[in-house]
């Protein structure tokens, strides 16, 4: 009989109206890398929450080293040596990186913190695994990428036996992913057991020993990676064949829509400029992609174009007009749409209903507000129903659902619907498919291509390499606030792109 580090046998967890986990079995061998594959909403997160004692399953047992254990809360899980990098970070926003790493296991003498020792250990770990962090930086000031690295370090610091990585590679470059894969393999060799949650088939194929697949709360099966293929896995995950490459015709760029010259934007986190003298042009009928690792100035670059941050230097021309100092509303009305990076921060008023969110960019138009300043609620409802229908936005109560009560994917669909339906001449899409499942990604990509084909310009900012390669017509790589290279997705490779993203290569 094989030795299992942890076993979850016949787990069933129900929520009102839905069975999140329906008789799921997951067996993690000692020293293996086991991938858990499934679309959003397949039940991966619920299963992990059960493992961490956040939920109690209605049926099924959990065994550690062959013995039944009862996990009542995350403390129990910690005692069993289970550590996890969550998909949604569990960090204290106003604490430093170091404070977060030692949180709960603070080294102390008679109640006084001994931080210097901890810091040394963290720096060692961070160097050893190439996880760059500034231990003294405050979480709310650092990028999403660095926050995730903090999460990984948190687990390494605790020297956990069973390591769960919940989609850890989303924000890394190919080289870094490669490194992480090596780390994971190394850890497995040392006898640690790794559960690798992902929907990136390439990574699973490369690193995992076995893979368990979930679909819509059901257990589909476990396969040996050595004897399976990517296509097989995706069929298991989605239940049908999936197009990996976005079908699109070659771009036919025409006149310039956006012309940026020497744009410089100050950084909020450090004294350097986040964007340093960037110049670029975006034309009608093309999708230009800004690729790069998270935190290389893409966020500030978009803020500068959309007007959320003032420029320190440089000039922006939009449709032939200088909009360098124009207010946000003017840019929006002129035909600029912005699918923001952070849908909760910028994209939605979470306490507003879906219909009120759908008119967020248009509520002031005569169609929705009369001359006396009263809202035309009937028109808003009709418009919302149209968008909901057209873009297949699903929610519990239709137009009157509070945005907060909607799933992340449908919130994103609502934003995409709102921004594309304005038929903007320039669509700025930042991470438009972040956290979405394969079906929704396919859909949003199609919408973006359709928008391009209608003769509009699209500026895409993405950290997902697959998205960058398959969707864009032209790739500009941003590294430390500068454009370091322009690549053609048809002729370049992921590896080459990665070299630019990591700053190892640049075009002069």
């Amino acid at each position, binding site marked *: 009989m094989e030795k299992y580090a942890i076993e979850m046998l016949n787990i069933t967890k129900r929520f009102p109206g839905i069975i999140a986990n329906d008789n799921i079995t997951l067996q993690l061998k000692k020293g293996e890398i086991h991938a858990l594959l499934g679309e959003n909403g397949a039940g991966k997160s619920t299963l992990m929450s059960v493992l961490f004692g956040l939920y109690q399953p209605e049926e099924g047992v959990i065994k550690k080293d062959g013995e039944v254990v009862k996990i009542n809360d995350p403390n129990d899980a910690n005692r069993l040596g289970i550590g996890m990098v969550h998909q949604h970070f569990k960090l204290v926003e106003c604490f430093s990186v170091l404070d977060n790493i030692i949180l709960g296991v603070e080294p102390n003498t008679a109640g006084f913190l001994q931080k210097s020792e901890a810091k040394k250990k963290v720096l060692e770990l961070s160097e050893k695994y190439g996880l760059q962090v500034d231990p003294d930086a405050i979480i709310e000031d650092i990028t999403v990428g660095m926050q995730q690295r903090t999460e990984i370090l948190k687990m390494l610091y605790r020297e956990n036996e069973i390591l769960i990585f919940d989609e850890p590679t989303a924000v890394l470059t190919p080289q870094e992913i490669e490194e992480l894969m090596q780390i994971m393999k190394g850890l497995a060799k040392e006898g640690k057991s790794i559960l690798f949650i992902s929907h990136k088939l390439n990574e699973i194929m490369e690193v995992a020993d076995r893979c368990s697949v979930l679909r819509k709360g059901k257990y589909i099966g476990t396969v040996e990676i050595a004897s399976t293929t990517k296509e097989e896995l995706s069929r298991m995950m989605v239940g049908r064949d999936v197009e990996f490459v976005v079908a699109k015709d070659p771009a036919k760029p025409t006149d310039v829509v956006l012309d940026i010259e020497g744009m410089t934007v100050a950084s909020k986190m450090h004294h350097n400029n986040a964007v340093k003298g960037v110049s670029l042009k975006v034309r009608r009928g093309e999708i230009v992609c800004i690729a790069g690792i998270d935190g290389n100035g893409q966020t500030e670059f978009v803020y500068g174009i959309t007007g959320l941050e003032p420029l320190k230097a440089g000039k922006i021309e939009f449709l032939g007009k200088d909009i360098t100092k124009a207010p946000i509303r003017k840019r929006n009305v002129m035909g600029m749409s912005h699918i923001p990076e952070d849908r909760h921060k910028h994209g939605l008023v979470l306490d507003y209903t879906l219909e009120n969110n759908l008119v*967020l960019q248009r509520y002031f138009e005569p169609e929705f507000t009369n001359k006396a300043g009263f809202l035309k609620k009937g028109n808003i409802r009709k418009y919302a129903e149209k968008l909901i229908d057209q873009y297949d936005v699903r929610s519990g109560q239709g137009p009157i659902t509070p945005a907060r009560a909607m799933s992340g994917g449908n919130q994103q669909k609502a934003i995409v619907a709102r921004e594309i339906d304005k038929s903007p001449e320039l669509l700025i899409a930042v991470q438009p498919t972040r956290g979405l499942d394969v079906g929704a990604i396919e859909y949003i990509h199609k919408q973006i291509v359709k928008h391009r084909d209608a003769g509009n310009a699209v500026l895409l900012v993405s950290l997902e390499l697959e998205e960058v390669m398959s969707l864009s017509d032209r790739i500009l790589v941003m590294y430390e606030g500068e454009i370091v290279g322009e690549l053609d997705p048809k002729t370049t490779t992921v590896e080459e792109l990665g070299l630019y993203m990591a700053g190892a290569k640049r075009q002069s």
Partner: protein
Amino acid sequence: MKEKRSLLRNSGFQTFSTSILCILLGMFVGYLALLIIEPSGAWGAIVAVIKNFFKYPTGAARLKYFGSTLAKTAPLIFCSLSILFAYKVGLFNIGAAGQYCLGVALALYLAIVLQLPWWVCLLAGIAAGAISGAICGLLKAYFNVNVVISGIMLNWISLYGTNLLLKPAMDPSGKDTFRLVNKAKQALLPTLGMDKLFNNNQYVTIAIPLAIIVAIVIWIILDKTKLGYELKATGNNLHAAKYCGMKENRNIILTMVIAGGLAAMGGALYYLSDFEQWNVNSSAVPGMGFNGIAAAFLGGLSPIGSIFSSYFITHITIGGGNVDLSHYCAQIADFISAVIIYLCGFVLFFKTIMNKWLNKSEEKKIARARAAAEDTNKEGGNA
């Protein structure tokens, strides 16, 4: 998919029922407190609080004192509107008390010292409160100073400023300002004959219908207009408001201007009705601004609800004055109404509990239904 939702899920109904629950609980706790202090008079005291003007034997007297209760309700409605308006935009206008003072100060100064007509006094009072609100708003918008901090500071500045300004309007025979009826008849609010309806209660003035009209206007602004949409969006998510091109700083300042104006309007109208005179030595910020918080929450943060909650709070406060003082000390009236008002703040708390309970029972129902379905399946399989 449209589901039929139970009445218990209706937000309006929830607010109403939890408000009633709070009131009952408040009265119960108040009664308990009275029992502890002095059991023999407790029932009489709590009845006096609830009865208020009903203690008078004749209908005419009841009507007159009903009028007085209404006259005192009007400023509270304004204060609660001020609180809830700012609250909807994500700002906590604790400065309502100070803005109320400033409304009183300007109104009475213009009335008594400058002998100006009532409407000029009223407008000046509103302007004073609006400016005070604007200061908080500007500090919030451009320097990110918490409006609670700046509001509290301004409360004291406003209180002593009011005392200082109204020194020349003081009646030398006491510590209060002159009665308008003696010194500034031109500044008395018109009654439009409503005083006759309430058995010649001269304090029943246009302030009362104005309060109701303003409440309705605020409701319309918040619920039906573009301005309300913008303000609430700013309050709920400043970043999203900025993202979609709203002028978020302007919205914050405008909100505080309106909130300040509302509180000041309440103060000005109340003192221009001559119901009370300002004590120029007062060293405590008037409670009206703070009771406005309780009234706003008891009314479920709805402008219409705040009309009723303000009336209720005024009703029991005045009723508290009728408690038999042979059993209790003089502070008992304030104490008992304070206990009730305090528990009125628990509306949101009870709402949350109610929703939790509803979710639980729904979950159980679904589980039961599923179990039943599985059973029938099994039976079907066996057959």
